């Protein structure tokens, strides 16, 4: 293994072990278990009641309920995954430097860029694992309680995992200049801003307000975790048609902007730019 890759691999393994032993992981796990239990109960009740649903003939009540419940779960996964990503990375540079955790590693000698990349990769791997496990659990719950499955199964999970990894990268970038507390606050404000813009975009779509839609579109590409989340939502209902699709898209948890073929390449480029800025800023920083 080369002199560059070996320290990264060592630090990734170390950071993953740290992630799994930290209290935040226990808290997120407990919250997730609570969510899955309550979600299962909710799905069971919703799918039972949807059998009695009487509406227009061309509205599929089970499809509508499944898409909305799945959208709700994806929002929860996005949020919990973001909590995990933020807490794993919020003190990567300044916080760890102030606590004296970073200096012994940098002197070892590990390059600052290697530390940043390793911390991001570890957070991305942990969060991806988390998202995949919870997303799979949700699909099993939806299948078991209502016999419902999304139109696309794999893509939405991967897009959600990528969205959380983007947030981890932004959090690491913030950690260069901000204290851990300030960075945590900033990260959740950015997350909230992105998700809120997405909701406004859906409102704009519903009332045919092009300006609002355009603003939401710009924000979702400036903060591409939102665009990825929207694309993931969109894939879950990709094959729906007619009035059912219209109703799903009206709700905040059922429809999303597909993003298009350029979304993932754009996100890769976006991550590259964030990494470049983060490495340049860290290289200039006194520790």
């Amino acid at each position, binding site marked *: 293994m080369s*002199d560059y890759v070996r320290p990264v691999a060592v630090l990734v393994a170390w950071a993953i072990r740290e992630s799994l*032993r930290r209290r935040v992981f226990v808290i997120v796990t407990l919250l997730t278990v609570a969510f899955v239990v309550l979600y299962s109960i909710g799905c069971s009740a919703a799918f039972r009641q949807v059998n009695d649903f009487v509406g227009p003939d061309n509205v599929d009540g089970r499809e509508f309920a499944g898409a909305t419940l799945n959208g709700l779960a994806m929002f929860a996964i996005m949020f919990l995954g973001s909590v995990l990503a933020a807490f794993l990375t919020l003190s990567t540079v300044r916080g760890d430097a102030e606590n*004296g*955790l970073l*200096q*012994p590693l940098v*002197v*070892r000698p590990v390059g600052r860029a290697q530390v940043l990349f390793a911390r991001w990769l570890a957070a991305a791997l942990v969060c991806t694992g988390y998202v995949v496990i919870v997303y799979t659990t949700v699909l099993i719950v939806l299948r078991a309680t209502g016999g419902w499955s999304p139109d696309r199964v794999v893509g939405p999970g991967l897009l959600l995992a990528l969205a959380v990894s983007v947030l981890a990268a932004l959090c690491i970038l913030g950690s260069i200049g901000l204290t851990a507390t300030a960075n945590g606050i900033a990260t959740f404000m950015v997350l909230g801003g992105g998700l809120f813009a997405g909701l406004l975009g859906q409102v704009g779509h519903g009332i045919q307000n092009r300006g609002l839609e355009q603003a939401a579109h710009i924000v979702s590409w400036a903060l591409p975790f939102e665009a990825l989340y929207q694309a993931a939502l969109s894939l879950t209902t990709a094959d729906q048609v007619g009035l059912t699709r219209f109703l799903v898209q009206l709700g905040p948890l059922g429809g999303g902007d597909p993003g298009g073929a350029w979304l993932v390449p754009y996100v890769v480029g976006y991550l590259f730019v964030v990494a470049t800025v983060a490495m340049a800023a860290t290289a200039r920083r*006194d*520790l």
Partner: protein
Amino acid sequence: MALEPGELVGLLGPNGAGKSTLVKTVCGLVRASGGQVDVFGAAAGSREARRAIGYLAETFRYPSWCTGTELLRLHQQLAGSDGGEHERSRLLDLVGLPEASTLRVDAMSKGMQQRLGLAQARVGHPRLLLLDEPTSALDPVGRRLVRDVLTQLRDDGVTVLLNSHLLSEVELVCDRVVIIRAGEVVTQGSPHDLARPRGVQIETSSGTRVIDGAGRDDVPALVRRLVADGEQVYAVTPLTSTLEDVYLEAVAGDTS
């Protein structure tokens, strides 16, 4: 300022003099605003320079969840050391912490963590050891242990830069003392050379007095004269300035 291979140098100075900044500059953690720092011929901060360095920071913390063994193994892996279990147990024994191998950091006292930090700094046998206040959290027994470790390191040919406020400690173990103030070296030399004659204290039948300006070489003549004058001489002590006197004179009372 230059450190010779195998030399144990004490770095002294008032708060804000630049001691920690100097150490961090050598480590490559801080960029020098001027001048040049080389480590065994490599520019400070370069990979080659850092590879030669072991560092214990003044403010340090290790992850609370890991054990002594896990921490040392991490640093072995990063340093590319193939010492394995033998090196880890030897280092923990060196700093008097054999029990720390399975003990979590959050179960260790601050003093234990500081000694673990010293062991961590020695991973991979660095040629230059930079210790920033390595005994600030230690009790007298722990300080004695660190002094013994430093002496052993010097015997092993390791170059050590010891940044400390504890003058007595520096005086006891260091080959050379460098006193800096506002980023400038104001005086340096071996503790013995820095100590200057301060007179001779003589205890006689008529009391104890200090003969200012006299030195060790003047003692026989002084004693002969006192005995000739009919005085009983009980004790004669040549006085020299302590490192503390030298330090206070060098920093001119600066406590900033």
